[in-house]
Structures are given as C-alpha cells and as structure tokens.
C-alpha cells in the first residue's frame, strides 16, 4: 500500500508521456496499428523526397501519389470492411473475388450497348438505365451473399466450405455465360468512378470513406453491429440472450455481397471492362489480411472497422514503398506476408501483457 503514492508522483514528474504511451499501447488495440501507419507514412514521405522547385509542387506530387494509392485500393478497401464483419461473427468469406466477377458481369450484361444489353432490349438507356443497373447489381450482390448466409445457417455448412464452393460456382458460371461476347459499357456510366472533382479523380475514395463511416457507426451504435460481436464472441450466450443468431449471420454475408457489388460497380466504371477469369483473384486474401492487420481476431468477436481501414492503408503504403524502392514485383507478396505476421505478433503481445 505504501508503494502506490510513490509510483503516482514519479509518474507525474517526468514519465507522463511514456506512461500515457505505454497505457495506450497496451490497452487500446487500434493505437499500435495507428502508430505503425504513421511511421509508414513518414517513411514514404521521406522516400518520395523533397527534390522539388517549391513547396507547392512537392505538395502536389505528394497528394497525387496519395490519391493514386487510395483510389487503387478503394474497391478492395470496401470489401475488407465487409470481411471484418464476417470474421467478427467467427466466419470467413472466400467467395468475394467470384462475387465481384458475377456482379460485374451482371452489370455489364445490363449495360451493354451491343445486341446483348438487357436494358437496351427493353429500350432503356442513359441515366434511367444507369440507376436501374446500380440498383439491380446491388440487389444481385445482396442476393448472392444471402444465399451463402442461408447455406451457412440453415444448411449448417461451415463458412469456409460454403464460401469455397461459392467461389468456384460463381466464377465458373459467370465465365460460362459470358464466353465469346464482348460487352461495351456506355462511356457516361464510367462517370460513376471517373468523374473529376477539379483535377482529381477521387470518386472511389469518397465511396470508400462514406461506407467506412457508415459501417463504423453500425458497428458501434446499432443493435446489428453489437450483435455481430456477441455472436462471434460466444454464439450460445448470444442465442440465450435473445439474439437471432441465424438472422445476424445471414445479414452479415448479405452485406458482404452488397459491398462486393459496390466494388464491382466501381471497377467496371473505372476501366469499362472486367477480365472475368482473373478479376478479383486473391481479393479474399487481401481483404482478410487488411482485417487481420487492423486487429480483427480470426476466432471472432474482436474486430475494428477503423482498424481495417488502417490495415488496408498500411498494406497499400507498403506496396507503394516497395514500388519506390524498386523491389521486384514477385517479392512484394512476401512483404505483405511479413506485415501480417508482424501485426498478429504485436497484438498477441498486447493480450498477454
């Protein structure tokens, strides 16, 4: 008992910052992730260098670099947010890449300006066609996700198996029905992702930010968001507390499908086409990696939407750095792997100390 006041005064004298830092480090899971991100950004800024005529042109170049990073990662960043919810329920979704292709193909079939365009057949074009397309594609993504969710809850298929099967089925069926056709997307539709605000093409970034904010709010403040944690942390206890576990799970996978379809729309409207055999391959692993780096526990329960955004940015900035350093492309995945391991080790240390 006599020790306590002594400790307190010594804290107040000069260890204030370190004590605060140590407390935050070991008690706030997002703190270490945020620190890691800040360090990466500083490093990246240093590597970019200050070899410019003026502060203005340096800032210009720095900003452009960042806009590129963010825009290139917006689609996968949105998918990673949904993945965070899925993992928090104790599940996993391996089918996101294939769902991306399926919903992307659906969008292109609806919009095609050639003979196969479904909306063209019913005489729809221009803005009404775009609105209908977006709504139908979102619904389609939601439906595919719900299907996965129902097979997991009603069918009692483990999430890994159910989504592995969906991953194979969705892509294969999409490829079969789209073979031999070249679809053309109307140029105006591309505005969804390519619209310029001033000099900047930042629409995908805005979508990402808005969705991240909404999902952050959902995870913190809504019944659905909190029930996700309850289900992932202790499913039996959640059920015995009146949580409709099956409904929560189906909704989480449906939301995942919806978010993937948004990513699909962004991708289609950025480049006007999609390579159905390769698009989205490995997307599930990148999304899982972002969530894990952001502190989400693979065994369910613990997870952070904000952490996943940080995690995505850490991976993105690292890719950018490797690019700037001229690291050979094949080696880059290895660094991604190291980051994931490092993040998990960091979080493990927190738990035990």
């Amino acid at each position, binding site marked *: 008992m006599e020790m306590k006041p002594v400790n307190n005064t010594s804290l107040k004298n000069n260890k204030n910052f370190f004590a605060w830092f140590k407390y935050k480090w070991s008690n706030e899971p997002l703190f270490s992730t945020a620190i890691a991100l800040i360090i990466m950004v500083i490093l990246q800024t240093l590597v970019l260098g200050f070899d410019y005529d003026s502060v203005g042109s340096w800032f210009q170049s720095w900003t452009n670099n960042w806009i590129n990073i963010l825009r290139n990662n917006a689609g996968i960043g949105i998918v990673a947010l949904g993945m965070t919810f899925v993992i928090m329920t104790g599940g996993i979704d391996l089918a996101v890449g294939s769902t991306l292709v399926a919903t992307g193909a659906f969008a292109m079939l609806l919009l095609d300006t050639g003979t196969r365009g479904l909306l063209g057949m019913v005489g729809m074009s221009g803005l009404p066609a775009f609105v209908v397309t977006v709504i139908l594609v979102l619904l389609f993504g939601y439906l595919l996700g719900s299907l996965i969710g129902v097979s997991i809850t009603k069918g009692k298929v483990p999430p890994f198996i159910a989504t592995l099967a969906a991953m194979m089925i969705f892509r294969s069926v999409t490829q079969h029905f789209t073979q031999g056709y070249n679809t053309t997307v109307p140029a105006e539709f591309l505005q969804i992702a390519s619209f310029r605000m001033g000099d900047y093409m930042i629409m995908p970034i805005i979508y990402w930010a808005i969705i991240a904010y909404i999902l952050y709010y959902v995870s913190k403040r809504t*019944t659905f968001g*909190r029930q996700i944690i309850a289900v992932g*942390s*202790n499913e*039996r206890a959640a*059920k015995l507390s*009146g949580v*409709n576990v099956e409904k929560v799970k189906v909704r989480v996978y449906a939301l995942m499908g919806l978010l993937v379809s948004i990513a699909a729309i962004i991708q289609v409207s950025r480049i006007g086409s999609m390579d159905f055999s390769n698009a989205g391959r490995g997307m599930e692993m990148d999304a899982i990696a972002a969530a894990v780096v952001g502190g989400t526990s693979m065994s369910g329960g613990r997870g952070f939407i904000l952490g996943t955004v940080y995690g995505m940015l850490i991976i993105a900035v690292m890719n950018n750095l490797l690019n700037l350093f001229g690291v050979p492309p094949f080696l880059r995945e290895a660094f991604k792997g190291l980051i994931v391991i490092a993040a998990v080790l960091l979080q493990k240390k927190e738990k035990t100390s």
Partner: protein
Amino acid sequence: MIIEMNSIRKSFGSNDVLKDVSLSLEGGEICALLGENGAGKSTLMNILGGVHQMDQGSITIDGKSQQFSTPAQSQEAGIAFIHQELNLINDLPIYENMFLGREIKTKRGSLDLERMFQETKEMFEKMNVDLDPKTMVRDLDSSYKQIVEICRAMMTNASIIIMDEPTTSLTDREIERVFTMMKTMKDHNVGIIFISHKLNEVLQVCDRYLVLRDGNLVAEGNVSEVTTNDLAHFMVGYNVRTESLLREKELGEEVLSVEALTYNHTFKDINFSVKAGEVVGVTGLLGDGRSELFQSIFGADDISSGKIYLNEKEVKITSTTQAINEGIAYLPRNRKENAIIGDMDIMENASIVTWPKFSKRGVIDQKKQQDTFEKQRKTLRLKMGKLTDSITSLSGGNQQKVVLAKWLASNPKLLILDNPTQGVDVGAKEDIYDIILKLADENIAIVVLSSEAHEIIRVCDRALVMYHGVIQGEVKKETMNEHNIMSLATGGQLT
C-alpha cells in the same frame, strides 16, 4: 512427506492478495481450503503450483527449501494441480491421455501404445477404478474425467494433489465416486488440498480446514470440531442465515402452464404450471432433463409435442427472440459458456437482451440502457468499476448479477433461473436469494432450477423433482426436506 508454506505474501500491483499466509500438509491428509471468491485461494495454490511466484515467504518439502518458478518444477517436486477445467483431450482414449506430454516410445520412436495401455490398467487396478483404458475420454461423464486426471497425477508419483472445486458440475452419485477415489488416495499416503464452496462436502471428506478471507488466514482446525454454519461464518466474517426465507403470500394468475411437453428422449409428458408471485423449484440429478426442458420452453431448443400456455393463451415459441418478447427470461447454467460474452464490457453484457427494445431504427439508445442498468446496479448490490471494464474483471458473484441485470431490464413476467448460484460465493448467494424473493413479491413468476436441495428448500414455494426426463413427483412446502427430494430424484416415491 510434509509440505509447509510459511508466511507467504503476494501482491498484484497495489492489490495485496496474500498477507502472511501459512499452510502445512502431511501425506494421507485431506485439507479443505475455503474462502469466498477473491479471498486468495487460487493465488496461494498457484504459488504452490509454480504458476505465480511469491513476493515473500518460503516453501519447504520434508524440511528442504523449494523454489518453484515454473509449473514443471512444482510437478517434479511431487505436486499435482487438478484445475476446474480439465486438461484432457476428448478425442483420445484414456490411456493416451494418461501419458499426454510424456508418451512412452518404442525404440523406433513410435508410440508404445501397448505399454501405455498396460501401465494405465495397472494404475486403475491399484486405485480400484473400474474403467476400460481404451474408452474415449469423450464418452466419460465428468466424475470419471476427474478420476482419470487424478490417476494421471498419481502416475507422475504426485504426493500432493490440489483439487480446485472438483465437484461443481457433478451429480451426487458422481461426487460419491470422486470422494471414494480421494479416500483411496489417502490410503496411499497422498496429501490432498481440497478447494470447495460446498461446505457439506468439506465436513464429509476432509480432515482439516483452512479459511482465507481478504488474503489473511482467519481460521484453521479439525473438521470434526465445526459445523457448516461455523465455516460459512469464518468465510464471510458474519453470521449467515440458513433458515428458510419463505413467507406467506397471495398468488396471482397462472403465468405459464405446459401440457404433455415432450422432446425425443430428453423429457417426456411434462405437465405443470406457475402462478404470478410463485417460486417453483425444479430439481433432480444430472441427466434429469430439467435444463433441456426449460431451454425448449425458452425457444432455444425444439419440442416434439405438447403445448405451452402463457397467461392461458397457447403459444408456439420458435426462437429466443420471440420468448423474450413474450416476457420470458432465462438465466442459463454454466455462466461462462452460456451467459458471458467475453469480448464485451460490463454495460454491454448487462444490456444485450434489451438492445432491440431500447433502440430506434436499429440505433441503440445508450442513455436509456445506462439509466436502466444504474437502477439495477443498486438493487442488485453489484460491486464493479467502470461500465466499460471487461466483464471478466468481475468476480463470479458479480458476473452473475450482471447477467441477472440484463434479464431484469427486459421486465419479464416469467423468470427462469438455471443454477443461479453456481460458482457464486456465500455473500452473493444470499443477495441472489433476496432478489428472487423480492421479484416474487413484485408478482413475477419464478422457476428456480437447482441441483442443491437445500437451495430449493430455502427459496421455493414448492418443488418439482425430475428423474430421467419425467416429473417424478412434487414436494409441497410442508413436506419439503432433503430426504423427500432425494428419494424422488433417485426414482423413488414419497412415502
């Protein structure tokens, strides 16, 4: 063999958990270690088991000073710690479990299953255990799992065995089995430290007792010189009531009644009813089907046939969500597995049930949740820190009060309490009994499921006794005693 722990001190941060505690134990002696949750029992045993290091004090075995900085060193010195959560692998047979971590290998490096089997068999014969070593651990009931762990400890030539609440989840018959085993160990000159909350058992099986309170040793002596009342008094520091808490009251309308309720072989043809303001006890031995019955009524499991009436209207309950909307609350047994959500804080654990009710368009009304909880907190005498502290930072009794708070927040008209005082210390137990009676006064219909007959006798107006999935009989207030309950619970009739 004599083990002595002298003047042990231990603190975690500024919290002094043990203040100068001494303990001695001889081979062939069973010593009860008693105390409320947080009294320091676990810390003391963890020091002996090498999990924690003491700040001050000494441990000697047969006069030789010992230092345990790892569990392995403690085991080497002949101390075995049998934890509440058993360390057995369900998917391996008994004899492989017996050699977990120190498997016998053949010259070629593969497992010598034959020898492991033989040695297990010999050990079982020595200890009078009637088990086939080839049985899968999964197929054993909890008492046999305990016994396997004990035999495993004996195999490592343990001369001191620490048993941490070994009987918590056991039925009376299983407890008997473990006690017989303990007596056999005693005959083999093994010393046992027995941690338990069940004072009757202490009187039945122990030679000596030691009581800790707030990190101090407050009493010790021979068990033959004390009563359970004395021990309870030592543990809490004041006199504990043991008299029945019941009083006369007017009962209200019928809240729940069931007709011929059946689910496969778990329970069959169940008929009973509960009135507003009534406290009905349901008891029996393990496998009586009472938890399954009420989980089905609560919508967590199915029913194959039969009818459920709430306020005399027939209802079909297909989900727990619906049950809550109908005004049913169910506090489950085995708090850790069924009620506590480890990743959520105290406030959230106390409000999960009412999230849908206290939210607008899916957004939770935090203020309303907090106000409701603050009120509960006072009536429940809940001891806790911040609302955002982890639920696991609370003692068992306070965790249980949080679970109770979440159900009271839903304003139930029927409250089902399944083993409400499981893993709860004496003081909190009394609080929970008080709360039950207070709620009955507020005209809530209450069902208390318990395996402890004296608990049923203390708080219930009448009791249904179940035996293998059927209601074997009902005991009225006037005839309620342990003898009557036990004869029904074992399949007999009232005489």
